[in-house]
């Protein structure tokens, strides 16, 4: 077989594999969505609550630090520029609008993808290579209900909640920098922040967070289920889940912003 034919065959094979994987991930998501009605039923309640705890509570520490410093950095960078024009009082609106519209959901998404999403991919990957997923299937226990649905519920509920938390801490971080480094009182910072940030900014930000929750669950669960080759495969699946989640969050974040603001 000639080189161009071989190359075409390889590329074609990869495209088919990509379409197959995407179809598999979408089917998994749809089925898990259908099972949401049983999220707090007798069989799934415990797992759903556990996942809500893992996603919401166990990520709080790292989110607090990242959110606070994101707000502080934003305030410092914009404040230093605005001070050249004597307009540093506007850091309140700059920080609030940036956090609520973009940085809050984006930073929360990245942190959750790196912490919770990678843990999901590693756990499901390990379960796949140790035949636990096959055992569930043989016992006629649908892995999409048993494993994916509770994680989908947890991530789609907790992402907006954590985003609100990130926004609050980020704005607080900005206020601290404003008060201590830039001479902007907390009152005028807050007045300025609330004057410019709109309800639409908040809703769009929360919508993004919700979508990011779906993305992280789908990517990490799918990567976990696709794991092959033992421990090495688990490592690869974990890495891939974080990279793909980051990329999809970036692209979808841009598209949502474009959809609502242009």
């Amino acid at each position, binding site marked *: 077989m000639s080189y161009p034919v071989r190359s075409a065959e390889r590329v074609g094979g990869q495209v088919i594999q990509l379409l197959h994987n995407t179809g598999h991930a979408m089917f998994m998501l749809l089925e898990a969505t259908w099972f949401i009605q049983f999220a707090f039923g007798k*069989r799934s309640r415990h797992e759903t609550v556990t996942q809500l705890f893992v996603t919401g509570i166990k990520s709080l520490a790292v989110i607090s630090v990242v959110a606070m410093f994101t707000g502080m950095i934003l305030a410092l960078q914009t404040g230093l520029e605005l001070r050249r024009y004597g307009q540093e009082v506007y850091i309140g609106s700059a920080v609030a609008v940036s956090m609520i519209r973009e940085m809050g959901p984006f930073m929360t998404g990245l942190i959750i993808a790196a912490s919770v999403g990678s843990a999901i991919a590693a756990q499901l990957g390990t379960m796949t290579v140790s035949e636990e997923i096959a*055992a569930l299937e043989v*016992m006629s226990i649908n892995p999409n209900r048993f494993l994916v649905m509770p994680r989908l519920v947890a991530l789609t509920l907790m992402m907006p909640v954590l985003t609100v938390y990130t926004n609050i801490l980020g704005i607080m971080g900005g206020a601290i920098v404003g008060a201590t480094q830039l001479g902007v009182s907390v009152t005028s910072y807050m007045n300025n922040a609330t004057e410019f940030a709109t309800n639409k900014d908040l809703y769009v930000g929360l919508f993004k967070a919700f979508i990011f929750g779906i993305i992280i669950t789908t990517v990490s669960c799918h990567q976990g289920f696709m794991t092959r080759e033992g421990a090495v495969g688990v490592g690869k699946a974990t890495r891939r889940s974080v990279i793909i989640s980051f990329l999809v969050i970036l692209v979808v974040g841009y598209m949502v912003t474009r959809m609502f603001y242009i």
Partner: protein
Amino acid sequence: MIRFDKVTKVLGRKTVLDNVSFEVGEGETFVIVGLSGAGKSVTLKHMIRLMLPDSGTVSIDGEAINLLGRGALREVRSKFGVLFQSAALLQWMNVRDNVALPLREHTKMPEEEIISRVNEKLELLSLDDAGDKFPSDISGGMQKRAGLARAIIMDPKIVLYDEPTSGLDPVTSRRIDDLIVNMRKRLGITSVVVTHDLHSALAIGSRIMMLHQGQIVENAPPAGFIKSKNETVQSFLESQYITKKGKWEELSHE
């Protein structure tokens, strides 16, 4: 009960099963042996439709399972219990919860009855004290027994064992063999066992089938199996120091 009719399966560029046909009857302990990569586990996976054949048919109780819908497949799978090679216990649940899982998922049994049935199975498999332990806290042999307890908790008609004695010491291996024989005697379960261990196969099997390069090279009762004239079977027997003479000569269980 289980019937393979001209089943072929290709994985990558390798033909793992090549036009394979055989039948497993009710109450049999059917042992599949062969070298690594011979297609033993793939055969087992076809029985519960964890894999689909590229051509040919797999039937359970006369029903071809290739094209079954989800509901019908659930019905067919409810006839099976499976002991996986790695036991496949869920690591975040203790042994009791692992064994109780199918009952909690598929029945409306009250919790007291579930616990009572689980304790009964744990006792049957000498795991009375292990109920509250997590899989990572118990030995490989205990994990296999816990996996077996879970496999039989729904009282299946057929139990599939994928390498039940791999990675275990000889004493624990023989204990697992005894359990498989007991399952057949006490519960009348049909068993299909995949193993490398010919000593185990000859001790528990009512029929032994050898796969080699995706094809059946022998399918006979133990007494007939060790007398096989097939060269591959003979070299497999010799590799495990089993000769036609000695204690194997007296094999008669069929």
